[in-house]
């Protein structure tokens, strides 16, 4: 197991290196809006643009640019300087990370509780009105995009424009350390909006898994032993049915920690997603590179954690 983890950690490094190379090629080498021209502003003249290009180091050969970038990253953990904010990308990411973590973790708790709860009830009350209603709503939840649900939620419940003003609206985010009550109030709508589609998907997934598991021979054995139905369902049934959910959950959380672009944009939450969105629209190449690497890091690490967790959840899985 230790050898396996060591080998996988080595892979994390290799993969991150490949991701950095790929994003570098995509954003620096392929044609996009010229960052130097964008920075030069309205009164730009070719001379100014050329000077900015030199300042940014964009006149150097591509390979040299990549070499310098990687050297700074590895030796000084320096992700470069944002064109847009004129600040270190590393600092920008650390500033924005708490908002994204708040959003992702809060939503994850919400969707796990809702998805697992609804999934179990729907599976046990299969074909009942409750089952059909929740699964119908789940289908809606999976299909409704975040920017639609988000705008509807703002229109209905935001305290600035809402019909029934209940919670903080767009642009109301406050860091937890500044004001916990405001933090909570500002995140309730984003949490719900972000959690809906995940909860819907998880409940359908768990329902299907649990229905299948409840038909397994070992469930019949558990009943034949004379266990209470409650114990049969939760200890023997849910225990098996929930294992695949762990995989999906790890990956979903990993992806979201790299930035919930749509949700953060709709609610104007200053997180990683919002940062990358702005960076892309303004050709802020170092920031794009930084956020992509961060996202890749979270996804790869989540993958590793899921695989390790699996060995503990399913004793048949053994890594050599």
């Amino acid at each position, binding site marked *: 197991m230790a050898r396996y983890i060591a080998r996988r950690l080595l892979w994390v490094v290799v993969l991150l290196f490949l991701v950095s190379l790929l994003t570098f090629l995509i954003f620096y080498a392929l044609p996009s809006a010229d960052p130097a021209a964008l920075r030069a502003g309205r009164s730009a003249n070719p001379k100014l643009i050329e000077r900015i290009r030199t300042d940014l180091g964009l006149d150097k050969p591509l390979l040299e640019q990549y070499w310098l970038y990687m050297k700074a990253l590895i030796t000084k953990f320096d992700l470069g300087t944002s064109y847009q904010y004129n600040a270190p990308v590393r600092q920008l990411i650390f500033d924005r990370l708490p908002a994204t973590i708040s959003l992702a973790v809060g939503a994850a708790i919400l969707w796990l509780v809702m998805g697992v709860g609804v999934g179990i009830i729907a599976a046990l009350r299969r074909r009942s009105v409750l089952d059909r209603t929740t699964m119908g709503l789940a289908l809606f939840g999976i299909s409704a995009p975040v920017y639609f649900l988000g705008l509807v939620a703002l229109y209905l419940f935001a305290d600035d424009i809402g019909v029934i003003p209940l919670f903080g609206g767009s642009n109301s985010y406050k860091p937890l350390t500044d004001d916990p009550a405001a933090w909570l109030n500002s995140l309730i709508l984003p949490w719900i909006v972000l959690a809906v589609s995940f909860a819907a998907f998880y409940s359908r997934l768990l329902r299907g898994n649990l229905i299948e598991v409840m038909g397994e021979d070992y469930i019949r*054995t558990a009943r*034949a*032993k004379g*266990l209470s139905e409650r114990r049969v369902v939760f200890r023997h049934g849910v225990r*098996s049915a929930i294992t695949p959910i762990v995989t999906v959950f790890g990956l979903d959380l990993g992806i979201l920690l790299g930035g919930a672009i749509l949700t953060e944009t709709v609610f104007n939450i200053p997180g990683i997603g919002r940062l990358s969105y702005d960076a892309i629209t303004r050709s802020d190449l170092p920031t794009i590179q930084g956020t992509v690497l961060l996202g890749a890091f979270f996804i790869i690490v989540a993958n590793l954690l899921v695989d390790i967790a699996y060995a503990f959840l*399913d*004793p*048949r899985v053994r890594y050599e």
Partner: protein
Amino acid sequence: MTALLEVEDLRVRFDTEDGVVHAVDGISYTVEVGRTLGIVGESGSGKSVEALTIMGLTRGRRTAIEGAARLEGRDLLAASDDELRAVRGNDVAMIFQDPLSSLHPYFRVGKQIVEAVQAHRDVSKAAARDRTVELLGLVGIPDPARRVDDFPHEFSGGMRQRAMIAMALANDPKLLIADEPTTALDVTVQAQILELMSRLQRELGMAIIIISHDLGVVAETADEIAVMYAGRIVERAPTATLFSAPRHPYTWGLLRSIPRLDVPREADLVPIAGRPPSLIQRPSGCAFHPRCPYALPSHAVTVPPLEAIEGDPAHHVACLLPEAVRAAAEARLRAGATPQEARAAAGVDSLEPEPAS
């Protein structure tokens, strides 16, 4: 002898999308204390459903259950879910066909047996674990104190079934129902498991219902055998009688379709023609008549009752042919005749004139 389990006119119907399945259609039998009843039939004959129903494991919104199954006089079919749960794994225990899929893959074998002990006894974990090690030793698991912490996938097929038996014995059941206990196992392991069950029965004095499609398996263990076809018992007799003087054409078919040491090796195995009947649309009259080499036109109309044959009150047969004709046909078959020859020799066709067409 005292009756442990009396099943009386048990009927089980499932409401499915394709129609109503008459899985068990009025069967009755008695299991005596400490004795073994074998139930034999093809897949779909209702033998497993019948056993699961006694355990209360077929209950559901789409299941209709009628009749009675009295364990020491108490009707299990009328018992509440909670009452039945107290019986399951306690007075009546069950083992299944595939021991790998019947054990939970995520839990240690010992833990699963501890759970069975604690389901019915208010004992500490340590005491339940001691009992589990003892049980594993009883069923012949080597080094039980160490193997108790293995996972099912670390056991061999035979050991898994031994572990299932240990789990079933956890609370000293009066009746053990074994549903195809050896079907998923290698032949050598099959014999070991059957031997184990016989030994445990001698030592612990429990009654056994052994269900199998394999007459050979049942012959080794059962005192009495019931042959099921399409949800009904077509023949029931003490084991020796069933093999020496079978009286139902379906039983003849079963016997001729398995290899035996007491018939010449050149004798061909004869499969029973046709397919097992649909339980949604049962054949009319005697359900076996479409496949029976001795069927007469009237057999498609009249349902044969299960009755004791003259001179042997322990031997019950549900067949419309007269006993004398059946005895004659069986004698011809035993002498090596084909079913067609036996039919002619026994004079089956003289019983009913051909319908004027």
